[in-house]
């Protein structure tokens, strides 16, 4: 008898539809509206920056995947996420060649060095940004205002600096547009160096005035909510970060309102929302245990506020996340879940939750059984013999 060709495979024989590509693709989808609004704010320079940085990331990814240095595939979209996120954290007028350097470094040092997708210790986008922050401190601190007239026809001059050349200071260009150069400062820098606290409406929508706020926090929260609901991202981490940052900021604000800004300003200025929703939730670099996620998020929130208040830098999200990334394996180790049936309260005969039946049937005597019998609303049909 000829045997049919059947395969042996280990159980389970069915699988959920979610794959690495699906997760990454949906993160990219959710980033697209944020990028679109960013381009609307800053015009053609922002668009060029996003395209160049992402292309640099993909180029580096392709090189390292091809040479076998790192795992994964180009088509898994993870390099696209790195590129988009990196572009969103850079100033819109950041010289394009520097953006390309940031993208290459992000993948090479942040990802390929560790072995590719899943093995990286630090968020690759933040590694890239940390590198350019150290390498080009002036360029990365030079913000331009949003909603400049003619932003769709004209590049911010610093964008187009030739490779290896120092970009022009956009102050003169701004003056020609009769805009105050100071308007280009970020809300955090304004607070840090001038003691000006921006209003809630300016921060939330980024629509009013020419304030140099980054990508819109409201939009990021919305897109993040989409990801969390579809479970492409864990909701605990952003919640923990924002909660802990708000709590720390509120405690300090309550302590001395004159010296410290209100917690709302803390939450919605700078890159905290972007960092909390998209950067800190990078799966490979955050703890895998639910309790660990809370600890990790709380650490980021606390560090962000501390760095913002007590260091020379106006912004601290990036370093807070990188430090927490490094601490993540340790956090994971001390927050292992308690397995079923191994909790401290197990075996004491106490129910963990409200249940239908008491554990011990002591009171169910046969006389008072009606107490637990389901109520009969009508006479049941006679069973067929």
């Amino acid at each position, binding site marked *: 008898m000829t045997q049919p060709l059947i*395969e042996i495979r280990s159980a389970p024989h069915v699988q959920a539809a979610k794959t690495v590509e699906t997760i990454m693709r949906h993160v990219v989808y959710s980033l697209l509206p944020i990028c679109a609004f960013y381009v609307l704010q800053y015009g053609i320079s922002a668009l060029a920056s996003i395209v160049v940085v992402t292309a640099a990331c993909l180029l580096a990814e392709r090189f390292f995947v091809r040479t076998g240095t790192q795992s994964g595939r180009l088509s898994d979209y993870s390099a696209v996420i790195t590129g988009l996120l990196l572009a969103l954290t850079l100033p819109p007028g950041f010289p394009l060649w520097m953006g390309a350097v940031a993208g290459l470094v992000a993948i090479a040092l942040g990802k390929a060095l560790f072995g590719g997708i899943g093995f990286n210790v630090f968020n690759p986008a933040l590694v890239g940004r940390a590198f350019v922050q150290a390498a080009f401190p002036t360029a990365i601190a030079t913000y331009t205002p949003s909603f400049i007239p003619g932003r769709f026809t004209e590049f911010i001059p610093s964008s187009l600096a030739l490779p290896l050349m120092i970009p022009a200071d956009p102050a003169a260009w701004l003056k020609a547009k009769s805009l105050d150069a100071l308007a280009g400062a970020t809300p955090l820098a304004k607070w840090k160096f001038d003691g000006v606290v921006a209003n809630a409406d300016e921060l939330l929508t980024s629509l009013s005035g020419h304030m140099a706020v980054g990508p819109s926090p409201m939009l990021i929260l919305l897109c993040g909510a989409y990801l969390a609901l579809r479970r492409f991202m864990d909701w605990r981490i952003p919640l923990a970060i924002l909660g802990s940052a708000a709590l720390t900021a509120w405690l300090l604000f309550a302590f001395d309102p004159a010296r410290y800004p209100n917690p709302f300003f803390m939450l919605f200025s700078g890159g905290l929302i972007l960092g909390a929703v998209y950067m800190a939730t990078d799966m490979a670099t955050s703890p895998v245990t639910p309790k660990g996620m809370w600890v990790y998020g709380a650490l980021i929130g606390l560090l962000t506020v501390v760095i913002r208040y007590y260091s020379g830098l106006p912004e601290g999200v990036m370093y807070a996340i990188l430090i927490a990334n490094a601490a993540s394996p340790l956090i994971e180790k001390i927050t292992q879940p308690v397995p079923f049936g191994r909790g401290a309260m197990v075996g004491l005969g106490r129910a963990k939750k409200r249940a239908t039946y008491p554990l011990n049937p002591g009171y169910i005597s046969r006389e008072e059984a009606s107490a637990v019998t389901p109520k009969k609303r009508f006479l049941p049909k006679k069973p067929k013999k």
Partner: protein
Amino acid sequence: MKLLSYFRGEAFQRGVHPPSCKLTADRKIRRLPFPPRVTVPLSQHIGKTPRPIVKVGQEVVRGQPIAKSDEWLSVPHHAPLTGVVEFIGLRPGMRGTWIESIVIRAHPGATQEDLWGQPRDLSQATGQDILQAIWDTGMVGLGGAAFPTHAKLSVPKQAKVHTLVVNGCECEPYLTCDHRVMVEQTDDLLAGIRYAMRATGAVRAIIGVEDNKPDAVATLRNAIAWAGAGGAFPEGEIHVEAVPTKYPQGAEKMLIMALFGTEMPAGGLPIALGMVVSNVGTLAALGALLPAGRGLTERVVTITGPGVARPGDYRVVLGTPLKFVLDYAGAPAIDAMDARQVILGGPMMGQAIGSLDVPITKGVSGVLVFRREDMQARETHQTYPCIKCGECVESCPMGLNPSTLGMLAAKREYDLMGERYFLGDCFECGCCTYVCPSNIPLVQQFRVAKQILREKAAA
């Protein structure tokens, strides 16, 4: 929507919701014809292998014991067919090894009635008598584990059992045999529950049924109300509870959690909580066999899957070769050499088999056939390194950390897995592997690790 599950009261924490695919839920149980030849493997349950008590060439009648053991943790086998013992020796088994089996050729003219066994009155029997009677039927857990039922229902002297939990969850996708048994053999089931309660000394029985089988819940409640009204047993002794559908609810720890809100201590048995858990199929079969004094010679098997032409629940004679079963139910994919997988059991925990000569045994609850195109999605799913998404941690019903366990397994740190990460608690339900977006064969790694740890412990 894991986010919402935090606010919704849930039967037990974590777990998964695979598509249920219960194709055969409203088809009546039909009888599969008697095959010309049956193969009865001697080892088809947990425990000691019984020895054959028949010889080659001997005539046997349906229901006659053909293998027996004096060991407590073992069960006898009964001739599934009236015929002649043709061969005693090695035959292919479901795990790929050859195991000792008895082959019986059916008499072409035999009526295949149950000729063996005397009806008996168990109404005055003690618990011990009932246990002995259960042992004589050769009953094992029909849900898949195939643990001898008399051993499961016997209560150690120092323990006391107050509750019989009857497992009618059938959480595995595709399988519907327990569902149909609950609907069609309700009286047998209630009788079996009564016997089991008397054997264990339980004062109440709770039938846990997943709420995707409302007809089973309604039928059982009806029957209980009528039987109670008729005075067959005190009212309020047997309850039916619909538990929210979720895989793996059929695991006894999860079912006890769903019904009583209590975690079973790790490494313990339900008896520590004063409970005994048994499957509905087992109890229904007991209810039919015990008063008739017969042995287990057939069982209900779900034959289903996209590759089966006439899926359904069939009453199959034990030892029927799979080839015969699939020929009858119609599996064009196999004829066209296009089948990809044949699975004994459900898709989450079932065993893929490599040969169709394997017989249906007492522990086989389903036969699943997948075609080439059904496996396409799995085959094109690329394997990535673990991206630590945490899906497995969120799905493990035992609250383990499969992500870390998997990474340790890849590094062969088996001792660490066992000591610090509680590998021994894993009961291989497959949730972690089901959800893994990186397509890592976590359960397989754990099976290997557990086997290695067992060997180390034995050495």
